């Protein structure tokens, strides 16, 4: 389904669209305040960008170094070529220990791999412990945002959901009350879990450890209680040295929510006594993107969500309209790069305003990449007819100056008396949200010639 088609449902409710837009703009505004409070913000961005680009140029070395150090610390390291292999590894580890219920903290990678349905089909109870993720999980939905998974849901809807599933009072919609109910429910799950799964924000080659950032402390409880910790990470999450965290931790939370740092930034470097710790290094298409000089910088993304929050299209169309694990500007780059045929419409869900590139803490040139991707999609013949036909027509006209002139003359005449029904109908999607401008008396060419003539007098 194209982005425009999927977005139609969301924007049908204009009140809700406005609410969504404003809620997310509020987060973007907090990001601006946080960024402005750090005088060396631009230096931080360019440093972060350079560290990541350097890492990509030696990724194989850093991966091996990371593995070596992790193993030395008693962490078990696994490698997965794709989603299926990742899921199999997780299930195998759980089966070996006879684990039937697990808790998870936020991980976009496991979303990407479809881990939850896979484990559930194998009879394992999976509980997402991030409140937003738990809400979408209970609604049998996917996150609509990479940092704020339930940003599209209203508190009344959460109230109703919790009333049905957690037995909270009917009609209660106070976030404090609802969060308290979730706290009790989740603590119970955390205390009884057989294993804890986390994502990885940063992995450090030099130390063989990982860092996980949360505000709720759920990754910490989810790893400090159960006897097994499994961490899933994309191979692009590496940074070379511990000290580089001093750059990235300053950028991540400020870019994401405007906080100076997340409430918990946990550094895991060895299993607890009596605990097993596993790290799964997942490729799933990443090594392929690496080869693509035009787009490999998308692998530098630290998943802060700032480009989503600033994007005028994302804010007004909602995350689900992207039909992808990662929505918004960065999603519109990485998804079509991997699978252009499936995601051909995403690079067009963009006004090329450039705001995403402006806020990105690792300076991925997002809007340039989105523009370039349009070319890739056109070249591969993946444009839908509705875009191909007008382009073909425009090419034909612009190639022939006489036809262009004649067309202009005709348009100025015809447009004045054109019945509205001809422009504003179902066959012309362009007319749906637009009014045609008033037709000028004379052509630009004519006006320009007159002006030149007057000047030379």
């Amino acid at each position, binding site marked *: 389904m194209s982005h425009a088609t999927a977005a139609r449902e969301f924007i049908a409710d204009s009140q809700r669209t406005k609410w969504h837009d404003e809620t997310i703009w509020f987060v973007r505004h907090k990001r601006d305040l946080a960024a402005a409070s750090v005088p060396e913000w631009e230096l931080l961005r360019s440093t972060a960008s350079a560290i990541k680009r*350097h890492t990509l140029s030696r990724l194989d070395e850093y991966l091996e170094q990371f593995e070596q150090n992790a193993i030395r610390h008693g962490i078990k390291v696994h490698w997965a070529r794709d989603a299926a292999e990742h899921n199999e590894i997780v299930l195998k580890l759980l089966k070996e220990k006879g684990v039937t219920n697990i808790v998870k903290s936020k991980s976009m990678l496991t979303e990407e791999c479809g881990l939850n349905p896979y484990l559930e089909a194998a009879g394992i109870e999976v509980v997402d412990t991030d409140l937003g993720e738990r809400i979408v999980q209970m609604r049998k939905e996917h996150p609509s945002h990479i940092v704020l998974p339930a940003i599209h849901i209203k508190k009344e809807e959460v109230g109703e959901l919790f009333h049905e599933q957690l037995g909270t009072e009917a009609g209660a919609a106070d976030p404090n009350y609802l969060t308290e109910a979730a706290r009790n429910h989740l603590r119970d799950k955390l205390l009884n879990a057989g294993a804890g799964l986390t994502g990885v924000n940063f992995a450090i080659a030099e130390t063989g450890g990982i860092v996980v950032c949360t505000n709720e402390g759920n990754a910490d409880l989810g790893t400090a209680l159960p006897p097994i910790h499994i961490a899933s990470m994309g191979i692009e999450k590496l940074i070379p040295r511990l000290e580089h965290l001093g750059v990235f931790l300053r950028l991540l939370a400020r870019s994401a929510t405007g906080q100076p740092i997340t409430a918990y930034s946990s550094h895991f470097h060895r299993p607890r006594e009596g605990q097993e710790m596993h790290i799964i290094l997942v490729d799933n298409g990443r090594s392929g993107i690496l080869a693509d000089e035009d787009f490999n910088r998308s692998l530098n993304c630290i998943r802060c969500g700032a480009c989503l929050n600033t994007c005028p299209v994302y804010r007004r169309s909602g995350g689900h309209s992207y039909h992808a694990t990662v929505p918004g500007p960065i999603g519109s780059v990485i998804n079509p790069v991997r699978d252009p045929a499936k995601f051909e419409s995403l690079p067009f869900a963009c006004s090329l305003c450039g705001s995403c590139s402006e806020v990105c803490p690792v300076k991925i040139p997002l809007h340039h990449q989105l523009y370039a991707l349009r070319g890739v999609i056109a070249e591969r013949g993946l444009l839908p007819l509705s875009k191909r036909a007008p382009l073909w027509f425009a090419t034909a006209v612009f190639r022939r100056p006489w036809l262009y002139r004649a067309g202009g003359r005709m348009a100025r005449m015809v447009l004045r008396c054109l019945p509205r029904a001809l422009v504003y109908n179902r066959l012309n999607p362009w007319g749906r949200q637009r009014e045609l401008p008033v037709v000028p008396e004379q052509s630009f060419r004519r006006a320009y010639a007159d002006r030149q003539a007057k000047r030379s007098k």
Partner: protein
Amino acid sequence: MSSSRKHILQQVKANRAAEFELPSLDQDWQTFGDPLERFCEVLTSTGGNSLRVNDLASANEWFEQRISGNADSQTISLVEGVGRSTLELDQLETPQELSGLDWAILPAEFGVAENGALWVTDINAKHRAVYYLCEHLVLVLPASQVVHNMPQAYERLAGFATDDTPPFGCFIAGPSKTADIEQSLVIGAQGPRSLDVLLIV
């Protein structure tokens, strides 16, 4: 499994991005006139609370007042002289036994002025869950141990995760919180509902 390892590493090597220099971290990073003041300010903005006390005895007095009226609250203290432990962390077999713990009084190693974070480790805490499972967390820190910024913090942490250092460390900034329901900030998600930092001046 090892065939996947080989395959991924081969692919990554063959597809390496263009050479790019590692930048220098030796820069003019943000510092503050009064880092302690700044630390307290930012901590407040994260929902935490700070208090300067002269010594551990006054810290203890503060705590007694804080829990007054709740004589039966469960407490673990790893800071000698502050609070009385009703449970011994070392004696607990499993971290699950910490469930129901009201107060944890624990030492922090240092604080960071730019973001109000405190570095803690599990070096003396047999169950690191104690930081997260308690209802209320109190961290005790010598006021002299506040650095300006994160680059300085990592200078202090150089060597972390080498063989005889703690396996786990965490920057804690404020109590546990969430804004997942309509962006309304709620303090006390899964972790502690409050964070008090006692600065010994």
